[in-house]
């Protein structure tokens, strides 16, 4: 309900006109009712604002859910969904596309491929070292992430300052300003399939969060479940990041909020996290496009809102932490 209300309010806000009645009329007429319609408003709501609103909802949900999953699987509430190098991989991919002078579509494809490739390399290291523990995976993520940030630094170093470097930096701050309908269609199936799988596995994710030993003594096929879960969460993050650029804090903070409002039991907290993430991102993106006449990059806002929120959550949970 809150989400639907949020979507409507967000649809009503923008540079052209902020009249919610007009927006309501436009929506009602599309639903087949006979009401007076402002054709410009119709075009703005459905071609400009709606894709963007849906994108923010979806991306917020994706980042939050994968954050919640990563935190459980890696048994660490301080983990964000780019632990295994998704974000740095995507950044390298996107930057490569920018340096090659490719268009937006190629940039997104490169970002997605870069993110998935990074996670794949991260998952390869424990296999090569014949130590499949979680700790090895985390350390491997640090290695891959660290290496990729150097690669990214080289790319920034050789980038042409006025245009390419600016694009890279802007991409890294995250934005939904140029989102298009077909991009939504591209990530929607990923969102649908991966989120459903993760929600179905939410109780098993509880068991994964007890650690390898306990999970195995409960007869869980650890490698299978963990692989599915990590792949789904990484696909969610990579898809989100490929259209929006990197967005900080959401995947870290929202799962805490979900657990606080619901409970630690993932069967209850994961759906909540998904919903809260959607609302949070909707709010942030609406602020990003309405506060000033210039678009504010999303990571700036998520940082300003997310960091104090995180501090507040830690304050509320302080007795639970040791």
């Amino acid at each position, binding site marked *: 309900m809150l989400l639907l209300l949020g979507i409507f309010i967000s649809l009503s806000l923008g540079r052209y006109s902020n009249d919610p009645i007009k927006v309501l009329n436009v929506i009602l007429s599309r639903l087949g009712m006979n009401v007076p319609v402002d054709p410009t408003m119709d075009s703005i709501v459905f071609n400009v604002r709606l894709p963007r609103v849906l994108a923010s909802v979806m991306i917020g949900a994706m980042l939050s859910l994968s954050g919640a999953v990563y935190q*459980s699987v890696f*048994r*660490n*509430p301080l983990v964000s969904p780019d632990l295994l190098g998704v974000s740095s991989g995507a950044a390298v991919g996107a930057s490569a596309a920018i340096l090659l002078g490719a268009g937006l579509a190629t940039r997104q494809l490169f970002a997605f491929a870069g993110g998935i490739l990074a996670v794949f390399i991260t998952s390869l290291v424990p296999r090569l070292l014949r130590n499949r523990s979680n700790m090895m995976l985390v350390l491997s993520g640090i290695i891959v992430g660290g290496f990729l940030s150097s690669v990214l630094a080289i790319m920034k170093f050789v980038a042409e300052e006025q245009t390419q470097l600016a694009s890279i930096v802007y991409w890294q701050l995250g934005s939904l300003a140029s989102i298009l309908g077909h991009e939504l269609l591209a990530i929607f199936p990923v969102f649908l399939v991966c989120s459903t799988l993760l929600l*179905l*596995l*939410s*109780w*098993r994710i*509880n*068991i994964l*969060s*007890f*650690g390898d*030993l*306990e999970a*195995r*003594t*409960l*007869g*869980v*096929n650890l490698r*299978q*479940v963990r692989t599915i879960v990590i792949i789904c969460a990484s696909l969610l993050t990579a898809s989100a990041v490929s259209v929006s650029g990197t967005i900080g804090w959401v995947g870290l903070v929202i799962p805490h909020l979900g*657990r606080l409002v619901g*409970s*630690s*039991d993932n*069967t209850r907290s994961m759906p909540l996290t998904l919903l809260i993430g959607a609302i949070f991102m909707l709010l942030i993106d609406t602020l990003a496009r309405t506060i000033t006449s210039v678009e504010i990059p999303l990571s700036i806002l998520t940082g300003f809102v997310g960091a104090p929120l995180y501090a507040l959550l830690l304050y509320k949970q302080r007795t*639970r932490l040791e």
Partner: protein
Amino acid sequence: MDTLLQVKDLGFSYDGGRQIFKDINFEVLPGEIVCLLGPNGIGKTTLLNCLARLREPLQGNVLLNGADMADMPPRSVARVIGYVPQTLLPSFDYTVLEYVVTGNAPWLNTFEKPGPKHYQRAEAALEQMEISHLAQKPYTRISTGELQQVSIARAIAQQARLILMDEPTAHLDYGNQLKVLRLIKDLSAKGYAVVLTTHNPDQVLLLDSKTAVIDHHSIFHFGPWEEILTEELLSDMYGVPLRLIKVEGINRMVSVAPGL
């Protein structure tokens, strides 16, 4: 009575290195308690982990109800064997009930979530451990003794018939140590088989159980404690003089050091 667990010629080494133990043979019947004794680092926990299939043995087999465990899916093993680790390291503050209900995992499909029936089973397990009052408490905020009971409750919810415990008294104060031993005795009376590791030979005498000993020459001994435990074996194993004495008044044997 049918053998629940049969260990045949079991041997283990880490990554083909030094042999940790070998030629281990013993059986566990339903309702039996077996205490695993041995000096530090001799491989008690490793042996226990081989029984739980947490580690692959180098040689030999472990048979569960007559079937080779190595050929069984993890789920089938977990339906018979419950494992109570030495310490739980909670990461998120699940309630005790949310934690115990995960004992149902081997009885559910991968995508299935526990229903009312499974929560009832968890509640029954809490009742059996007499800790129903803890059900809604976060398991991060109960005492170590209570945590041990919660862990055993989960093995009961798991409907395990054999419960493996790695040093169940290791982190408990003296009173709670004795309470846990009492619990183990009760479990055995209810038909659960229990295999546990311990550092304290006197616990074997208290439990009046069978004992499995890996001495410091890595030789394996198994049988009722009266047949296995001698002052020579104990003194040799721990490298300090130890006595087995019958104490009048409580009418039982105790294992004690004669002095320092």
